[in-house]
């Protein structure tokens, strides 16, 4: 994350009309739009060069998926965060992107104000959750808890479960803070922690998979399978 100046952004989307529209919206509101990309491969390459604070990532990139690009960008570039902006519906691909390291998710139908707010919060290190993503993350923790005994699988604390359920029911961080009598910052921290645990576990799982299958050839290896 930059310490001064405007937040730098990169827009990845295979649809030119959308890509240029979003880039213009953000530029008009004072963001530094460093680059755009139309496919996953060039997105990773360009991100390495321009090192933006935030990458706005569409998941449905023609034949490619934004999930792998998200993993490569977040694991390779420490100062860069990925915000998923997708019209593909709140589904498992969004969950996969978040597990791969994305810091949040916004639907494409969100207003320009919501988008600007979300990019700002992502740059500041906060997690951007929709109710739909909270439902998916909650379901993912429950799935892991119900699965075979796995001591490495992360668990939610009671408080985190409570916060995540309220996010999934459409309450804003402010409303949750009021209802649970917590500070706004504490609520944000709880939400972030649910994501971080999931991402850490995902990285451990991938590493374990790589070692078991003799694929430990560094972070650039494509470990999807």
């Amino acid at each position: 994350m930059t310490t001064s100046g405007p937040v730098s952004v990169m827009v990845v989307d295979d649809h030119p009309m959308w890509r240029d529209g979003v880039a213009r919206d953000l530029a008009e509101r004072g963001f530094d739009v460093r680059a755009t990309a139309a496919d996953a491969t060039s997105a990773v390459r360009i991100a390495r060069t321009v090192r933006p604070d935030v990458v706005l990532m569409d998941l449905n990139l023609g034949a490619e998926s934004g999930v792998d690009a998200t993993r490569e960008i977040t694991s390779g570039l420490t100062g860069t965060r990925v915000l998923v902006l997708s019209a593909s519906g709140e589904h498992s691909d969004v969950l996969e992107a978040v597990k791969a390291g994305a810091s949040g998710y916004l639907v494409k139908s969100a207003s320009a104000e919501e988008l600007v707010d979300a990019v700002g919060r992502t740059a500041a290190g906060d997690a951007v959750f929709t109710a739909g993503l909270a439902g998916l993350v909650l379901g993912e923790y429950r799935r892991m808890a119900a699965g075979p005994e796995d001591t490495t699988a992360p668990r939610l604390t009671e408080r985190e479960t409570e916060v995540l359920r309220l996010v999934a029911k459409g309450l804003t961080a402010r409303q949750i803070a009021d209802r649970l009598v917590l500070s706004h910052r504490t609520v944000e921290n709880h939400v972030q922690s649910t994501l971080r645990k999931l991402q850490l576990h995902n990285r451990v799982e991938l590493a374990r998979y790589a070692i078991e299958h003799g694929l430990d050839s560094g972070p650039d290896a494509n470990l999807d399978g």
Partner: protein
Amino acid sequence: MTRATAGSVRKDALKPLWRASVLLRVITLLFAAAVVVQHGGEYASAALAWVTIAAMAVWTLATSLVYLRMDRVRLWFTIVDLGLCCLLMSASRLVLTDQQRTVTAVPLVTTIWVTAVVAVGAVRSGMVGGTAFGAVVSLFNYGVRGYVDTDLTRDLVLLVGIGFVVGLASTTSKQSAERLAMAMRAEAATAERERLARTIHDSVLQVLARVRKRGRELGGEAAELAELAGRQEVALRALVAAAPLETDNGRADLRPRLQVLMTDRHQVSVPGTPVMVAESAAAELAFLVREALENVDRHAGATARAWVLLEDLGAEIVLSVRDDGVGIPAGRLAAAESEGRLGIARSIRGRVAELGGSVHLETGPRVGTEWEIRIPNAGRAR
């Protein structure tokens, strides 16, 4: 896929069995001819024996053409086949001397050639056909010989057994061919759905989303159009995202039935993995949520939004429906019920009680309304 092609799939599945039955008939014909050569001199009428063999050869050729060439073998033809085989068996009464027929038990002219027709019955009509054809041939065998003994009864057991086993093979391959055809149809439908979803994502959704966003910013009449476009966008996105409605042993995934209720004012949040419940419960719960959302539209105020959350706790399903509307004033629910009107609360409570679940309602002025419905579930599908 049409019925005709489904039929041809079945026929294709049986082709190897038909070919085997024809091969069996040809080989057994050669065997029968060899038996006649061996016993020729001792017969009452060697000439008739050769006439029988000739008739068998002609019939073998005729049936081979029918069974290998025809797309569909008719039941009546297989019965004619059976009748002719039995007739040729009966001819042996005139060929064999009484001594040969009853005491020395010389084989009938047809010998094991008749097993082929049992196989035909089995391939055509499955276990029932095979068993029936085997029984008819065996009964004729008794009739032609004119007595019952261990050897003839052994023949009966073998013939009926062959009919049963071949029939079982025929039925099984027919069923697996049907299953394969069904799986292929389902796969084609899924592929088509994915292709449509991709097309919609690449074109319609992108444009609608853009129209909605830009229109809102322009304001005025454009904002109204944006609102319309937005509503269509969300509805279309929900349709595309919703997985196909599949049932498995009377259990169904509850998620797609809730996801289709998503609009720009109603958000539906579900887990990433299927939430399997009894099919009837899935329909009931979807109806209930739809009712609750309609109630939000009617009573919670024009700008009220609603959120549906589905959670699978393994032993129970939790469904929450929350809105940020005006809330239900204290006592209004009770008043509606005491007036004898079936209010939303009573309707929801009744349905949930039938599913063995419980309802918790939280409401008040300015905080909106939140329903929490808990339904016991047999457990998650793995």
